[in-house]
C-alpha cells in the first residue's frame, strides 16, 4: 500500500511484517523512531508474538539479540554511531557465532567532536566484523532491503546491517509502498536455525578455538559472504517477482552506457548525484553513476565490469580513512586493479555537511577533465583549517581544535537554524 510516511516508520512497518520475535531497543539518534514505532506495535499486540526489551545499553541490545538468535528466535535491533561502537565487541561476536541478526544502522558520524548528523563512518568502522552491509538509496529501498536481509541472513546464518542515512532518510517523509503481510510471508519463510540452544539436543556454542582451527572458522565466514555475492542478486530478482519492484542487488548502474566518467557512491546521495548526472547529460557530458548497494560483501567483479568501459571514475564517499583517504575508494580501486583507469576520491558530507548539486557540478567537471587531485575534500573551509594549523605553529597550548574552529567560523547557529 502506498503511503506518505516517515522513513523510520516505514522501516518499522517492514520489520514488523518480517515477524521478528525479539526486538531490543535502546535510544540513539537518528535511529530511535524505528524502535519507538516497533515498541508501540508490540505493546498494542499488533505485532505478536514478540518480546520487546528495553535494554540498558547498545552492548546489551546486541547481547540480548545474540541470546535470542542462538535460542532460535528471529532477532532485530537498530543503532547508530556511538551506539554501534559501544556494541562493537558483541557485533563481532554475533558474526563469529554465525547468528542471523538483522540490525538497522541509521548512519551517523562518530565523535569526537560529538555530532548527530549523517555520514557513513559508523557502519564502515565495522567493515571487517563479518556482518554484511546493505545501503539504501531511498526509503523504499530501506523497506525492501530489510525484508531481503532477514531472508539472506537466515539462509546463510550470518548477520546483516541495513544501512540508511540518518535524518536524510530516517526522518524524511516520502512515498513508500508498504507490502502486505501475505507478500512478505510468501517471500520470507519462518526462521529455521542452523544451530539452536535446545535442551532436547544440547550443543555447545562459543567454545574456545585455538590456532588449530581458527583460520578455518574465519575462512568460512568469508566463504559465507562469497556465497552472498551469488545470492544477493538472486534474492533481489525473486523479490521483484513477488513485490514487483527492483531494489537491492549488489550494484546498480545509471546511464553508464558510453559513459567516460562514472561517479561511484552509496546511500541517499545517489539521488542528488543522479539529478546532476541528468543535467550534465543534457549538456552532452558522457557521465554515469555506479551505486554500491552491497558494501559487504564487496562485489569486486561487478564493480570492475561496471567501470571497465569508462575512462575515469570518482568515488564520492561520506567517510574518511584518517591518514589514508577514502574507505570505499580503496575497495573500488582494488576492483579495477590493472585496468588503467584514472581514479579519484572525494570525501564529502562528513558530519552531515549538506552536499549541494551546485558543488557536484564543478567537482564532476573537474573529474571529467582529470584535473582533480587523488583525494578531494568537498566544501572544506581551507581558511579555517589553515588558521588552526597556524595557531598550532604559533603556540604550544593552542587549545581544543573543535572549539577553535567553531570560534573562527563564528557559528552561533547554522544559517537556517
Amino acid at each position, binding site marked *: 500500500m502506498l503511503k506518505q510516511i516517515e522513513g523510520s516508520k516505514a522501516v518499522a512497518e517492514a520489520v514488523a511484517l518480517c515477524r521478528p520475535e525479539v526486538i531490543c531497543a535502546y535510544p540513539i539518534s537518528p535511529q530511535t523512531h524505528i524502535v519507538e514505532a516497533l515498541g508501540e506495535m508490540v505493546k498494542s499486540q499488533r505485532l505478536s508474538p514478540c*518480546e520487546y526489551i528495553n535494554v540498558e545499553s547498545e552492548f546489551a541490545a546486541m547481547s540480548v539479540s545474540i541470546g535470542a538468535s542462538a535460542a532460535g528466535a528471529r532477532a532485530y535491533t537498530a543503532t547508530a554511531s556511538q551506539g554501534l561502537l559501544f556494541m562493537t565487541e558483541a557485533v563481532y561476536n554475533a558474526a563469529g557465532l554465525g547468528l542471523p541478526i538483522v540490525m538497522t544502522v541509521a548512519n551517523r558520524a562518530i565523535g569526537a567532536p560529538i555530532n548527530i548528523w549523517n555520514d557513513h563512518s559508523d557502519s564502515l568502522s565495522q567493515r571487517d566484523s563479518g556482518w554484511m552491509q546493505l545501503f539504501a538509496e531511498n526509503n523504499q529501498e530501506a523497506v525492501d532491503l530489510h525484508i531481503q536481509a532477514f531472508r539472506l541472513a537466515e539462509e546463510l546464518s550470518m548477520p546483516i546491517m541495513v544501512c540508511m542515512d540518518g535524518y536524510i532518510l530516517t526522518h524524511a517523509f516520502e512515498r513508500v509502498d508498504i507490502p502486505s503481510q501475505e507478500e512478505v510471508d510468501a517471500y520470507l519463510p519462518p526462521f529455521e536455525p542452523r544451530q539452536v540452544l535446545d535442551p532436547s539436543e544440547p550443543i555447545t556454542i562459543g567454545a574456545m578455538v585455538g590456532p588449530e582451527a581458527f583460520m578455518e572458522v574465519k575462512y568460512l565466514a568469508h566463504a559465507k559472504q562469497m556465497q552472498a555475492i551469488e545470492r544477493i542478486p538472486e534474492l533481489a530478482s525473486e523479490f521483484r517477482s513477488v513485490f514487483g519492484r527492483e531494489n537491492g542487488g549488489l550494484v546498480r548502474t545509471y546511464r553508464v552506457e558510453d559513459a567516460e566518467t562514472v561517479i561511484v557512491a552509496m546511500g541517499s546521495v545517489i539521488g542528488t548525484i543522479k539529478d546532476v548526472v541528468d543535467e550534465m547529460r543534457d549538456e552532452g557530458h558522457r557521465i554515469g553513476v555506479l551505486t554500491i548497494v552491497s558494501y559487504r560483501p564487496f562485489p569486486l567483479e561487478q564493480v570492475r565490469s561496471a567501470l571497465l568501459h569508462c575512462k575515469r571514475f570518482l568515488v564520492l564517499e561520506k567517510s574518511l580513512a584518517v591518514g589514508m583517504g577514502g574507505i570505499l575508494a580503496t575497495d573500488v580501486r582494488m576492483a579495477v586493479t590493472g585496468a588503467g583507469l584514472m581514479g579519484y576520491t572525494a570525501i564529502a558530507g562528513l558530519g552531515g555537511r549538506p552536499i549541494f548539486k551546485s558543488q557536484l557540478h564543478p567537482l564532476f567537471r573537474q573529474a571529467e577533465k582529470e584535473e582533480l587531485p587523488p583525494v578531494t575534500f568537498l566544501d572544506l573551509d581551507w581558511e579555517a583549517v589553515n588558521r588552526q594549523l597556524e595557531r598550532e605553529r604559533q603556540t604550544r597550548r593552542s587549545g581544543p581544535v573543535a572549539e577553535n574552529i567553531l570560534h573562527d567560523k563564528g557559528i552561533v547557529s547554522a544559517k537556517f537554524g
Partner: protein
Amino acid sequence: MGFQPIKFYQTGTYTVGNRLLSPDQRSVQADEARSNSINSGHRACQGCGEALGARYAIDAAMAESHGQLIAVNATGCLEVFSTPYPESSWQVPWIHSVFGNAPAVATGIAAAMKVKGRTDVRVVAQGGDGGTTDIGFGCLSGMFERNDDVLYICYDNEAYMNTGVQRSSATPPAARTATTMPVGPEPGNPFGQGKNLPEIAMAHGIPYVATATVADLRDLEYKVRRAMRMHGARYIHLFVPCPLGWGTASHDTIRIARLAKESGLFPVFEAEHGEVTSVLKIRRKVGVEEYLLPQKRFAHLFGSHPHPEMVSRIQEIAERNIRKYGLLDEEAA
C-alpha cells in the same frame, strides 16, 4: 577390634561426615540421577572451587528444571577449562558470547523461550567475579532491573584468575594479586569501600538473592533449587576458593571456604525482594588469622615484616559482617 563409637565432630572440621547422615540426606558425587551437566575430563586445576561449585549448582538447576535448562557463560576460567577445542564438558545446551554480556545473552534466551511458549525451559547465566562485579556489571543490573527470568550465578574467587590473578573489584583488602603486589608500605590490594554484589542485587528488589560457599554443598543445592522454583531475576553469589590464585593447597579448598564463612568474612544468607530472610550462623567462630594464614596471597601480613594493623582492619570487616547479618547465635558468641 571392638566397637568404636563415632564422635560427631571427630575430624575436628565441624562438618558432618556423609556416612553419619541418612541416605536421602547424603551428597553423592556419583549418583545415577545426577545429570553431570559439567562432565569429567575438563581442564580445571586440582582443587578448583569454581569447578566444584558449578557442578553442584548446574546439576541442582537441572534437577529442578527436569532437564529443561540452557546455560550461559561469561568468558573466564569456567568457560575456558570446560570447552577446550574440540571438546566440551557441557551436557546442557550452553553458550559463551563475550566477557561482559552473560546476563544480557541470558535475557535474550529467556525472551526467545517466552515468545516460543517454552516456559518449561529455564535459563542460568554464570560468570566469575570479574565478569560479574566488573565488566558484566551493567548488563547484570539491567537484567535485574527488568526482572528477566534468569538465575545468575557468580563464582567468586576474588580476582581475574583466567588471565593470571589480577585484581577485580571483588578482591579483598591486602590480598596479593599480579596487579596489587605485596610491596611498599601498604602491600597488597588497598582497603577500598568494597563492592558488595549480593547487597547491590538486593537493592534491585529482585525475588531472590543468596550467598553460598563450596564448603556447604547441600546448602548450595538447596539455594539453587529454591531459586529455580521462582521466576524473575535471581542471583546466587558463590564463594569458590582458587588454589592457584590464592596460594592454597588443592586439598584445602573446602576448608578455606569454610573458614571464610566461620570467620564472618563471607556472610552466608538468603534474601527475598530486598530483605534478608535467613542467615547461616557461624558454628564455631574463628579469627580472621586462621582464614588468612594458609593463603600465600596474604603471606605478607605475617612473617618477618608483619602487618598486624592490616590484620586487625580485616578482623573489623568480619566483625561488621557478624553484627550486620547477625551471624552469631547468642550462645556461640
